[in-house]
């Protein structure tokens, strides 16, 4: 479970990225976050992953006050999260397969089990035949899917995705969102920040609308 109460984030320089934001996400929910550029979508996701800390208010993830976590505790929070970024942050000095293997270094799976999981994750995003390729050889949509495979390989309970469909054509974007929906069906909580309202509306799930760092209200819903 994720819950924000009266969360504000002011960046050094006086910019208010979030102002008094409160909401809660139940386990296993699929949630979209929309808003104009600069509305605070990325900031909201970064607060959940402790990449940024709130200026006031509290962010709870599975009962843990993330904003107050000690530095040494942050890695353990992140191991329970799958993170997908707009710039996928892939490593181009190693193969697709090795990129997916990265998070498995922290789990205690025996090597054969780790390899099996990496292949399963690649299979889910349709990249199994490209495991030997270098990420640079993949298309934008394929790179995005690789980032998703890396995010889910450790079976996190929460998946956070920031603009995962930016710069993709409608079909590829639809394909990516279908992958998220599939993960959500097996019980993963999924939060997706996106500009793409048209796409969001197709899914008819809960949507948080942000403007100037404030929560405008919620739309969508079944």
């Amino acid at each position: 479970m994720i819950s924000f109460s009266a969360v504000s984030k002011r960046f050094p320089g006086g910019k208010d990225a979030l102002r008094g934001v409160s909401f809660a996400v139940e386990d296993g929910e699929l949630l979209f976050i929309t808003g104009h550029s600069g509305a605070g979508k990325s900031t909201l996701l970064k607060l959940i992953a402790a990449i940024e800390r709130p200026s006031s208010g509290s962010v709870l993830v599975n009962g843990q006050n993330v904003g107050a976590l000690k530095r040494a505790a942050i890695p353990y929070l992140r191991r329970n999260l799958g993170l997908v970024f707009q710039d996928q942050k892939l490593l181009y000095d190693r193969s697709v397969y090795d990129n997916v293997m990265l998070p498995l270094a922290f789990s205690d799976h025996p090597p054969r089990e780790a390899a099996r999981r990496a292949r399963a994750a690649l299979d889910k995003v349709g990249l199994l035949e490209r495991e030997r390729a270098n990420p640079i050889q993949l298309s934008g949509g394929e790179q995005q899917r690789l980032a998703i495979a890396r995010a889910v390989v450790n079976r996190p309970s929460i998946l956070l995705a920031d603009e995962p469909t930016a710069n993709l054509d409608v079909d590829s974007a639809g394909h990516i969102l279908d992958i998220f929906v599939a993960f959500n069906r097996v019980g993963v909580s999924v939060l997706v920040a996106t500009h793409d309202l048209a796409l969001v509306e197709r899914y008819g799930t809960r949507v948080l609308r942000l403007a100037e760092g404030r929560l405008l209200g919620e739309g969508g819903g079944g």
Partner: protein
Amino acid sequence: MRSWLRQHRLALAAAIRKWRAQRAAALLNALALGVALALPAGGYAVLEALDRLSTRSAIDPQLSVFMRTDAEPEAARQLAARLRGDARIHRVRLITREEALAALRGTSGLADVVAALGSNPLPDTLVLTVAGSSDGVLDQLAEELGRAPGVALAQVDALWARRLAALERVGRLALALLAAILAVGLVAIAFNTIRLQILTQRDEIEVSKLIGATDGFIQRPFLYLGLLQGLSGVLVALALVGAGLTLMNTEIVGLARSYGSEFRLPFFSSGEAVALALIAGGLGWLGAYMSVSRYLREIEPK
């Protein structure tokens, strides 16, 4: 425990991967570190050899007492008798001037020279072996005997060994200073190469932090890399010192033989080689640790 071992195996593998990824730079580094290590290590090897030489020669300190050539023939005999009663003196050997001349005459090639001399220029000589080997006793005796009637000169034969020992102490001090300076240099080299490694691997570090790597996990390969660099320097240093000693020995063996000695500069014992590896590996690790503590924290996902 198994997972701890696994983490370290992974870190070592990652370090070796990083090392091999830039083989050329790594080899140059090993060379630089090797030269820096070879200087104090080679100096140490030479000093250790000299140390063995000077202590071995000092085991049996001798004092030569030369009588004046115009002294009474009885003077040497009387002095010898007196010294035999001295508790500080272990053994007294008297070599009369006649005996000395006879010995000289017996030496091949010198017979003609001796014949040409006419009168015997050699003095009566007493060779004293001192009980124990304390420098103080030896010096005191030399001074006393120098003032005794009929004595021209009392000379401590182990003097050169003591000079060598004094020289060696100076050498050791210089070596310690050199080693300290080069140790700092070694740490600085490791610090800087690891800093460059960290900067070129920004992306990897950032991604590692995002997927939940602890600071320990991220820094471990860099620490191993510092260690490996130190060890690679040791290999180069051992090769350089080995080559240097071999080269010097070709000259020294001949020289030592002319003094009837089997002296040569020995290579490091395995214990010394291991100690060198520990020191250099430790210094590499230390430089890496300083670099990692300074720079890894700065790289945070945005």
